[in-house]
């Protein structure tokens, strides 16, 4: 039986060596770089996933300190494991999908390694034991995403989007770094567990500045309104697999970092209910702005902002109103959102792959020629809107419950606004489905549409199965989310 650190090192090693092998393999065999890079990356994520699965039983007792490869200080807990594993699963599906999807692109020997690097950053972020390493992996995540957003470097719009992403992200990073510096100045340590004990007796009044900086800095990454402005440009312009990754796990990583910080040093919060207000604002603004979008991926990007509001609402309700179901609901929503938004973007990508256009109007009637893609898209958006029996219903339900459970006016109002937002979101999800299933067909559909190739279809089917499974029987995973928060002591 392998030790916890050995399991973890194996899982990470798959990602590190996968990155190298994927790049070198693609670089050496330029003719077939897409297939070689893609398959190596897929295998690497699969291997990593196996070790993450093996890791699971050892997390039931609580968190444990691990020095990864002897020098990276990690604390392994169920909370981080859930986020890391979701990232790895999504990366596996996206790799599988992108092997065919990227066939028109060049430079694929860099594409797949960057995905692996991105997952590696998510994993590191999930387990980082101190603020410094949190920041380190946070930056790795950002750096690996910029080139992926601007991957089609010959076109102006992806490059512009990448630059905006870079500017916004760098601003956020600077604020986070300043916050870290202030924390170090105040407490003399960056270890989160130590900090959580220190803040109780420490200079709590002083914390308002670093906490404010963390909130805004990580908030930029998590695309909280009005810090979201980079997202509607960056997510749609990236290749669809990357859109899925960005919306499915990267912005959640920003939120996860915020959550870690709040659950360690956020005890004496200077802003009661701040997160709830942010959450309500974010979901309402995201949904409203999604309502009039003409491009499918842009609409999905705005919907991601709205969904971030739900996650944040769950966490905020637990953090400031104390209802126990909120944070697990938010965490569970991270899981379900990764799958359903990933699926939605992959379906949109599949349509673009065949039609060559991202305009929703050009996809009119596509369902009759791409039935699997359209059905998968329907499942994804219904789940996003929180319609049973799909996963999104279960996670949103927990968040609504939490607000009502809190038995406060704010909790009730928040839940009602969240429910109203779900109704509002149907206002753009259903028309999109309606366009796909329209009796008329757009000229592009008539000329080009046909069902996606096997590998892409397989990726879609995997996610559909996950969404329906979590919708019908949410329980092992939902229980893990509850367990993850029940085990938390001092942020881990």
């Amino acid at each position, binding site marked *: 039986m392998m030790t916890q650190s050995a399991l973890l090192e194996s899982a990470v090693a798959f990602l590190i060596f996968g990155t190298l092998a994927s790049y070198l393999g693609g670089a050496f065999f330029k003719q077939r770089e897409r297939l070689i890079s893609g398959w190596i990356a897929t295998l690497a994520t699969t291997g990593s996933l196996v070790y993450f699965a093996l890791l699971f039983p050892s997390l039931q007792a609580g968190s444990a300190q691990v020095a990864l490869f002897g020098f990276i200080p990690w604390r392994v807990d169920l909370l981080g494991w859930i986020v890391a594993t979701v990232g790895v699963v999504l990366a596996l599906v996206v790799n599988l999908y992108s092997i065919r999807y990227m066939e028109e692109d060049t430079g694929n020997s860099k594409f797949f390694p960057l995905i692996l690097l991105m997952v590696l950053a998510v994993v590191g972020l999930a387990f980082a034991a101190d603020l410094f390493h949190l920041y380190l992996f946070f930056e790795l995540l950002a750096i690996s995403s910029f080139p992926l957003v601007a991957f089609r470097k010959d076109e102006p719009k992806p490059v512009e989007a990448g*630059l*905006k992403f870079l*500017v*916004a992200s760098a*601003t*956020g990073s600077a*604020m986070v770094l300043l916050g870290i510096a202030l924390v170090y100045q105040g407490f003399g340590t960056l270890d989160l567990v130590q900090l959580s004990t220190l803040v109780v007796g420490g200079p709590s009044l002083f914390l*308002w*500045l670093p*906490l*404010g*900086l963390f*909130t*805004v800095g990580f*908030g*930029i990454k998590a695309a909280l309104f*009005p*810090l979201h*402005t*980079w997202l*509607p*440009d960056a997510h749609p312009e990236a290749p669809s697999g990357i859109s899925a990754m960005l919306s499915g796990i990267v912005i959640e990583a920003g939120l996860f970092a915020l959550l870690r910080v709040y659950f360690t040093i956020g005890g004496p919060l*200077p*802003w009661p209910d*701040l997160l709830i207000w942010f959450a309500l604002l974010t979901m309402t*603004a995201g949904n*409203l*702005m*999604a*309502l*009039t979008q003409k491009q499918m991926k842009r609409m999905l990007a705005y919907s991601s902002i709205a969904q971030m509001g739900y996650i944040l609402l769950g966490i905020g309700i637990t953090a400031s109103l104390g209802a126990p179901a909120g944070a697990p609901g938010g965490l569970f929503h991270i899981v379900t959102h990764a799958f359903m938004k990933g699926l939605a973007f992959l379906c949109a990508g599949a349509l673009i792959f065949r039609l060559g256009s991202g305009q929703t109007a050009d996809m009119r009637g596509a369902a009759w020629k791409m039935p699997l893609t359209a059905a998968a898209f329907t499942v994804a958006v219904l789940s996003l809107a929180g319609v049973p029996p799909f996963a999104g219903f279960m996670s949103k339900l927990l968040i609504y419950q939490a607000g009502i459970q809190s038995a406060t006016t704010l909790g009730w109002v928040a839940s009602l606004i969240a429910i109203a937002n779900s109704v*509002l979101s149907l*206002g753009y999800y259903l028309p999109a489905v309606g366009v796909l299933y329209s009796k008329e067909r757009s000229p592009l559909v008539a000329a080009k549409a046909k069902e996606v190739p096997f590998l892409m279809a397989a990726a879609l089917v995997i996610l559909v199965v996950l969404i329906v499974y979590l919708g019908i029987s949410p329980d092992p995973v939902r229980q893990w989310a509850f367990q993850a928060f029940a085990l938390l002591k001092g942020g881990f």
Partner: protein
Amino acid sequence: MTAQLAGLLLFLIPFAGALLIPLVNFFAPRAVPWLAVLFGLASSVIAFFLLGGTPAGAPITLDILPGFFRSGLLLDPLSLVPALIATWIGFLVLIYSLGYMKGEENLARYYALVLLFIGGMVGMALADNFLALFFFWEVMGVCSYQLIAFFYKDPKAAAAGAKAFLTTKIGDIGLLAAIIILAVNSGSFSFSVNFGAAAGLALPVLGLAAFGFILGAAGKSAQFPLHVWLPDAMEAPTTISALIHAATMVNAGVYLLARVSPLLALVPWSLTLVQWIGAITALLGALLAAFSNDLKRILAYSTVSQLGYMVLAVGMGAAFASQFHLFSHAIFKGLLFLCAGAVIHAIGTRDIRQMGGLYKHMPAVAITFLIGAMALLGLPFLNGFFSKDFILEEIILGGAWGPLALALIAGALTAFYALRTTFVVFWGKPNYQTHPHKTPANMVVPLLALALACFLSWLLVGPLSEAWIASGLPAPALSALELIRVTFSSLAFLFSLAAIVVGFFLFLQRARLARYFHEQEPGWIRATSRGLGFDDLYTWLADRIRDFGVWVRMFWEERVMEGINRFAAWGSLGLSRLSCRLQTGDVHWNLLYVTLTLIVVLGVALW
């Protein structure tokens, strides 16, 4: 076979037939009519066992579904009458339909519905509790509606079916309300329990229940003011309109009133109400019959009028008199309908103005029709005379002079239309082109039998009253001789004789009357030809109700709900366009938002 088993079989057999016919229709559609007749025959044979086997004393009850719903069979002279009418006339309908409905489509539906109707009516009559009664009452209602609208492709038939259904439904609601009131009070649906417990109810509540029963009976028996469905029901196949509706189902209301008469007796005004309803209906029916030219309609209106007499008798507290008249009426009206059927069959039209002089072609029919008509108008020594006089006598004894006056006017009109119809059809100037078909001998035999019964059936008054008294129902002990003595020595005899004379006079003056009506066209005659405006009034009322419903729907759906929808859509799209302006795509603005957010967050913390 015991009477209770016979009673059970009497409605189970038609129901079984109604279930079986659709199945048989799958593989042997031609066998359907014969199968239906077979079921009808079986139940009409079994019906004979009911006659002899009713033991004296307490009514027989039988657990149909023990533990769940306790229902029983109530076999007394009162309940036997509608059950036997349903079974036997139903059987006649089935036989008659063999020829009449030949070649029509959807015969399986037709026969299944007729059998279901027969079973429903028998079940209604033999139920010993209100719930079962209501259930079978509704079975009858549904069958009747379906049968009226049998030729549903004809919009008139479909409309007539809907009209019958809706009109009787008003009565049914009353009946249901009455049953619920009683059941809540006593905790039971049983007749006997409720009759005992009803005295404990407050008078207004009991009055409400009584009114509900009266309403239910009025709907089913086509009594004023719910009589409007019956004339339209003539759109049904003749078998249905003449026999099922005019001769069979309408008795259900009279039966209901007779059944609940112990309750009505507790509410003083309810009997008065019943009297007036009966009297007005008797007059109205006679009036409408006098001015109709459709042979079937004349007989249907005449039935309504005679039912009015029966209801009036119940209102006088004389259930026995009403049932005695029902017995006579079943015979002479059955005779008249069969004669009418033969005439319509021969001429091919229902309009009496296109008939005339048919005596030459069908003397037997003419004579028997004349006998039936005489019984209808109450010529002495015919059965109709004794039973109608019995009712008039009860009215005089009860001192209800208002209803009596109406009933006498109705009697005069009855004499008029009976004579007019007979004369116009059989002795008047021939007015038809086609050569009348000869009446087949097998049709004449039942006519002669019924004509004979018109002379003799009143002699059964002795056994009838004995059976009533034996069952504990209120009835005078009468023998036939007694009946003769009482009838001829009463004031009612003079009154009814006077009414007949007036009617005869009117008949003699019919040419002048016709000229007067034709030239002067008094308003009421036009109103009569339009059903005295009841249809118009109800149509107007229904239209207002519908208009109100439409308005409510318009207001709620189009204004309120649609307004909310429009506002929500308009508002969210507007907000969406507005908020999208925040998305400038300009990095400077993006960073400005970040800075502002930081300032606000830190500012809130410091503040």
